[in-house]
C-alpha cells in the first residue's frame, strides 16, 4: 500500500519546526509502523536527505521509548498498543497520516519526533521508591500480601513510562504517570510506610516540572498503551487527603549509609 505522511521535522530544541510531506511506498501490511518509517528513512538517506529521527528501542511494546502521535492520537489508533507494536494492516491504501512528537511544555522537542522526557525521571526521583538498602531485608514471605492487592499493585506497576498520558492530556498533566507509581507502592505493605510523604513530594515535583493539572478528562487512560486506569488517580487523591492528616513535613530519606 501507499501512504502520505506529514511528519514533524525540527532540527533542534530552539529551532522552528514544521510538518513535511513524504510518500511511503510499497508498504506491506505485515510491517510495524516503525518498520514503515525505516523504509521511508532508507529512501531519505539514499536520496541524500536527513532521515527522520524518532525514539525507539525494544520494539516489543515494553521499554516505553517509542513516542509518536499519529493523527492526533499518541501511539496511534489501535487501543492498548505502542507505536512499535502497531502494524500497518490497521491502515489502508491512500491514508494520510500526521506524525507528531509528544507535545507538552515539560517535554521539549530534541529533534524531529524525539522529545526530552527527563521530567518523568525527576518525578520518580522525588519519591517514587521505597527507601530500602540492599541486604538486610526480611524473607520474601515474611509479610503476606493479599492476592488482590498484589494484582492491583501490578496493574499500576505495568506503566512503561512512555509519556503518552501527558501527550494525550489536553492539560499536559502527568497525573496518570505519577498516580500509577503512587498507587503501586501504596498498595503494598512495604510501600505504605512512606506513602504519605511520597504522594506529597511526587505531586509537588509534577507541579515544579511544569505539568498541567488533572482535568478528569481521562484522555490519558484512553491513550495508555498499557491500559493504566484513572482509578489510580482517584487513589492518588485519596492518598493525598490521607496524607493531610499526617505530619508530612519530613521528606523521604535518601542519604547514603556513610560519608
Amino acid at each position: 500500500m501507499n501512504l502520505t505522511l506529514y511528519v514533524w521535522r525540527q532540527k533542534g530544541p530552539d529551532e522552528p519546526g514544521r510538518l513535511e510531506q513524504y510518500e511511503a511506498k510499497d508498504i506491506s501490511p505485515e510491517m510495524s509502523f516503525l518498520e514503515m518509517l525505516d523504509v521511508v528513512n532508507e529512501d531519505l538517506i539514499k536520496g541524500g536527505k536527513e532521515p527522520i529521527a524518532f525514539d525507539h528501542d525494544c520494539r516489543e511494546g515494553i521499554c516505553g521509548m517509542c513516542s509518536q502521535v499519529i493523527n492526533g492520537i499518541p501511539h496511534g489508533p489501535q487501543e492498548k498498543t505502542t507505536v512499535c507494536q502497531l502494524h500497518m494492516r490497521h491502515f489502508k491504501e491512500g491514508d494520510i497520516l500526521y506524525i507528531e512528537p509528544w507535545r507538552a511544555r515539560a517535554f521539549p522537542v530534541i529533534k524531529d519526533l524525539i522529545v526530552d522526557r527527563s521530567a518523568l525521571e525527576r518525578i520518580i526521583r522525588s519519591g517514587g521508591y521505597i527507601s530500602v538498602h540492599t541486604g538486610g531485608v526480611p524473607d520474601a514471605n515474611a509479610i503476606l500480601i493479599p492476592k488482590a492487592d498484589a494484582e492491583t499493585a501490578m496493574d499500576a506497576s505495568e506503566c512503561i513510562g512512555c509519556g503518552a498520558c501527558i501527550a494525550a492530556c489536553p492539560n499536559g498533566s502527568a497525573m496518570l504517570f505519577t498516580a500509577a507509581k503512587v498507587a503501586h507502592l501504596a498498595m503494598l505493605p512495604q510501600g505504605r510506610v512512606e506513602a504519605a510523604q511520597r504522594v506529597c513530594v511526587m505531586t509537588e515535583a509534577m507541579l515544579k516540572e511544569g505539568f498541567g493539572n488533572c482535568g478528569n478528562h481521562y484522555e490519558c487512560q484512553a491513550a495508555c498503551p498499557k491500559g493504566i486506569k484513572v482509578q489510580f488517580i482517584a487513589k492518588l487523591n485519596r492518598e493525598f487527603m490521607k496524607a493531610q492528616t499526617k505530619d508530612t513535613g519530613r521528606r523521604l530519606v535518601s542519604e547514603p549509609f556513610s560519608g
Partner: protein
Amino acid sequence: MLDGKCPSGPLAEKWDKRCREMKLVNPANKRKYTIIVVGTGLAGASTAATLGELGYNVEAFCYQDSPRRGHSIAAQGGINAAKNYPGDGDSISRLFYDTIKGGDFRAREANVYRLAMVSNTIIDQCVAQGVPFARDYAGYLENRSFGGAQVSRTFYARGQTGQQLLLGAYAALSRQVKAGTVRLHPRTEMLDLVVVDGEAKGITVRDLVTGAMSSYAGDAVCLCTGGYANVFYLSTNAMGSNVTATYRAYKKGAFFANPCYTQIHPTCIPVSGDHQSKLTLMSESLRNDGRVWVPKEKGNRRAPHEIPESERDYFLERKYPSYGNLAPRDIASRAAKEVCDEGRGVGPGGRGVYLDFAEAIGRLGEEKIRERYGNLFDMYEKITAENAYKEPMRIYPAPHYTMGGLWVDYDLQSTIPGLFVLGEANFSDHGANRLGASALMQGLADGYFIIPYTIANYLARTQPGKVSRDHAEFRKSREEVDALTKKLLSLKGNRTVNEFHRELGKIMWEYVGMARSEEGLKEALKLIPELRAEFWENVKVPGNGAELNQQLEKACRVADFLEFGELMARDALHRNESCGGHFRVEYQMPDGEARRDDENFCYVAAWEFRGVDKEPELHKEPLVFENVPLAVRSYK
C-alpha cells in the same frame, strides 16, 4: 593458562571464605572513589544503586533516555531462586546442579554455586523494593516451573518480570541519584575504555543529543552492557543493544570469552518478511501449557485444525519424553530447526512450528489460559493478527541471549585490573547454554550482592582519584573515537548502515547460527572481512557528528559487529565439539544429539585482541569439576 582465582575449599564455603579474605574500604573513604557504571539494565542499575548506597561516587551511563529502558525490561518469564517454597525438592545445590548441567558443563562451578546461593536473597530484596510478584490467595509468593527445570522455582510478575525487577532496581537507583551519590548520564554512549598503566581508569563517551565527545575518569569501571545477539541483525534484543562497549574493552586488552555461545530461543514469532527489523519473543512459560508439533508429512499446507491428531508429530514429546515440551532452549530450538529443514515447517516460508493450546484450553478452560498468558496471546495477535485461542501459535527460534562475554575471574574482574563486567556482558555463569529465568537472577546477583564486595577488594589497593581526565591516555582515546566518527561521516558511500547490518546478520545466521560446520565457518571468516572492507569504503552516514544522529550511532555499533562477528566465527571454528548453544554438525551423536568433547574442550576459550586483521590469541581457562561429575547432558 588463565586462572579464575576461585577460592579453595568446599564449594558451599568458597564465597564466604572469599568475602572474609577480601579487603574493605573504610566508610569515610568510600566517597573518595569514583566508579563508572556503563549500562543501566538489571546488572547496571543494581550495581549503581548499591555502590551509591554504600557511599561511593557513581557515574552511570546509558544510551536510552532513561535507565529504566534497559532491555532487561523485556524479560517476560521470571526469575529463579532456590527458595523451595512449593516444597518440591528444590535446594541451592539442585539449582546449582541444574544450571551447570543446563550450561552443558562449560561454566565455572564456584561461580554457579555462588549464584544459586544468593538467588534467595534477590527475591527478598525485590519484594522489599515493592516488586509485585504473583501471589496466591493466602498472600504467599507463587512459583511456576520453567524450561529445563523439574521443580517450580520461578518467581514471576505476570509476563513482565523483567520490567518489574528493573523498575525496582531503577527505583533504588533513583533514590541514590536524589541522594547525590549517583550521577546519571542518559542518552550517552560509551565508545572507548581508557586504560592507564594497565588499569581501567575511565571511558570516552558521546553525548547522543549534542554529539559532544568527552571522557570520564574513575577508579574502576563496571561494564553492564548486555549481550551481542544483534550481531545476527534479527534478534529479540532491543534495536540499540550492541557489542561496542565490551568489544572496545576487548580491543583495549580485556579477553573475550566463548563468543560462540549464543542462545537461540525456541519460542519467537516467525519472520514475516524482508522488512523485519526485530523478532519478538513469546515467553518460554508458554511451553508449560502449549504443545509443540508439526505435520508428519512434508509440505503439508492444510490449516492446523484440519490436520488430525494421528498426522501430527509432537516432536519434543516424542524425542524427550521426560522433559517433553519443557526441554531446554538449545535442544528445543535445534529440534524445531530440524523438522523445518526436513520440509515439515508451517506458515509462510515453512520456517515455523505450531505451539498448540487446544489441549490445555480443553483441560483448564480458556479463562485459565487467558489469566496465565493473556498478555502474550494479545501480543501475538497484535503482531500476526491471529487468535491463538482458536488456532495454534506459530513459533520459530531466534537469537536471544549470548552466554559468551568478556572473561572475568571469580571477582567479576576482567583481565584489565579495575574493569569489572557484570550480567550478560560477562561470560561467567551460564556455560554454553542458559536456562530460562536465570538471566535476571545473574544480573541482579552480580549487581546487588557480588560487586559491592569484590570491587572494594580492588579499590582498597588503589589510591582514589589517581588519574584525571587530563591524562594523555584520555586525550588519545578521545582523538581516536573522534577520528572514527569523522571517518564514518566522510565516506559518503552508496549503501546504508542498515544494509550492511542486514547482510552481516544473514552471514551470521547462515553460518554461525544454530548449526555450524567447519566449511560454513570458514566461509563466514572469508565473507565477514570482505563485508567489513566494503563497509569502510561504501557506507553512507548522513548528517554530521555534532548533533543527534541516529545513523552515526548505528554505524559505530555496526562497525564493531563487523569485527566481532569474525571473532565469533573463529571461536566457533576452533571449538571442535557441540555443547549447549554451540552445535557443530560434525560433532553429533548418531541420533543427532550434541557430542561434547570433555577431553579436549573442557575449558573457557578467552581471546586476546592482536589487531583488526590479525588472528586473536587464544587463552584457556581449564574447567575443573570437583562437585559434579561430567555427564552427558540428556533430557530424554
